[in-house]
């Protein structure tokens, strides 16, 4: 085992880590927007919307991410759109994450005790205000720890976008492996970077969970 390999490629790995983080960030943010819509559909009273929401979650959680990524890649190619791989990568991550985030949000909404919206209704609140002032603030707070967890999962899943050629941590590790003929050091190096990122995120998660407990919201 030659640790110097890792040290020499430190710069490349750091750059690649940045790409990994950027791609994952884009994925989770877009995924949140889509996920919120899917969640709204899932809890809607209109049956057709409910079915669409349920189908979305079922499909995007059921089909493996790798298949989804390749599908988007070939789907876009089939229709003649020449999109850069990064678009396929981010949309793949986003659409997949949206399904998980929709369920997180739905769980959070259910976790808000019913009595609170009841009290609002009894006081004469309009539906919109019950949502805006009572349900949403609390649902968002409740969903932050699981959303941070989802971000950690997405970061690991982002290693799959290496197959469409994005120069993130896994791909760069592969490159280093083939250039230096030292796959052990290359992948250990990549792995260490992933671990480091995870450690920092897990730390954020712990802080967030502690701070959100103050103010009375469990």
């Amino acid at each position: 085992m030659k640790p110097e390999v890792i040290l020499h490629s430190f710069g490349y790995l750091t750059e690649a880590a940045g790409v990994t983080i950027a791609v994952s960030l884009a994925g989770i943010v877009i995924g949140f927007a889509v996920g919120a819509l899917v969640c709204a559909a899932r809890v809607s009273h209109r049956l057709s919307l409910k079915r669409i929401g349920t189908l979305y979650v079922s499909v995007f959680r059921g089909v493996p991410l790798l298949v989804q990524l390749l599908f988007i890649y070939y789907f876009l190619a089939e229709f003649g759109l020449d999109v850069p791989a990064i678009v396929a990568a981010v949309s793949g991550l986003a659409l997949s994450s949206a399904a998980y985030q929709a369920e997180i949000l739905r769980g959070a909404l259910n976790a808000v005790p019913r009595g609170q919206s009841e009290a609002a209704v009894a006081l004469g609140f309009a539906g919109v205000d019950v949502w805006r002032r009572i349900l949403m603030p609390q649902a968002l707070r409740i969903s932050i720890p699981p959303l941070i967890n989802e971000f950690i999962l997405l970061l690991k899943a982002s290693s799959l976008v290496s197959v469409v050629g994005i120069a993130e941590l896994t791909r760069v590790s592969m490159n280093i492996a083939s250039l230096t003929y030292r796959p052990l050091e290359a992948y250990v190096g990549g792995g260490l970077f992933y671990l480091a990122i995870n450690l920092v995120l897990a730390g954020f998660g712990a802080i967030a969970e502690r701070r959100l407990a103050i103010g009375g919201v469990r």
Partner: protein
Amino acid sequence: MNADLLWRYLPSLLSGFAVTVFCWSVGGALGLVLGFAIALARRVPLPPLQWFLRAFVEIFRGTPFLVQLFLLYAGGPYVGLRLSATAAGVLGLALYSSAYFAEIFRAGFGAVPVGQIEAATSVGMAPFDVLKRVALPAALIAAVPPIVNMLIILSKETVVLSIITVPELMYQVQTMAAETFTAFDAIFAMAVFYWLLVECVSRLGARVEKRVTAFLSPSGARG
């Protein structure tokens, strides 16, 4: 894509599916055994052991599965481990899942209500019996839903094996797609196939869960 093509490739697709099932079941089974062993070992108050086990779990849960596979398959020979692609795949699934199962079992042990342990010790049960007859069963029952969930996740991870050329289903489909220029149709069909598969397995899993935990609800116990 026509039926003719599909017929021609049916043997390789079936063999691919068989490899998928093989890797998933053997990998999952090994992972469960290893994960359980780790969870038990973590109850031994030996600091160096604790440190090692914690590091193991953190590493395999904190890094992507693909990186672990590359490490085993490409990096393995450099530490004297020459594995075939399939062997690397199965070992990879086993190690990856064992870390998650270890945490699931650990949480299961923690979920046993202290009161039940107290009831057993206050009636004079020996510590080993308390473990065997009270703590363990309760922990295992609590662990069933997350275990089922993890097994479903594992079934989806098998497609990653195709990247290190394990001849499972995804690999065969991609080979077929490349040879016949039907990439889009092939991937679409595979997506539908996996979706249906995961749906079925999920529903089966839910039923198994219900059966195992039935006695816990007022209406569920029978006989």
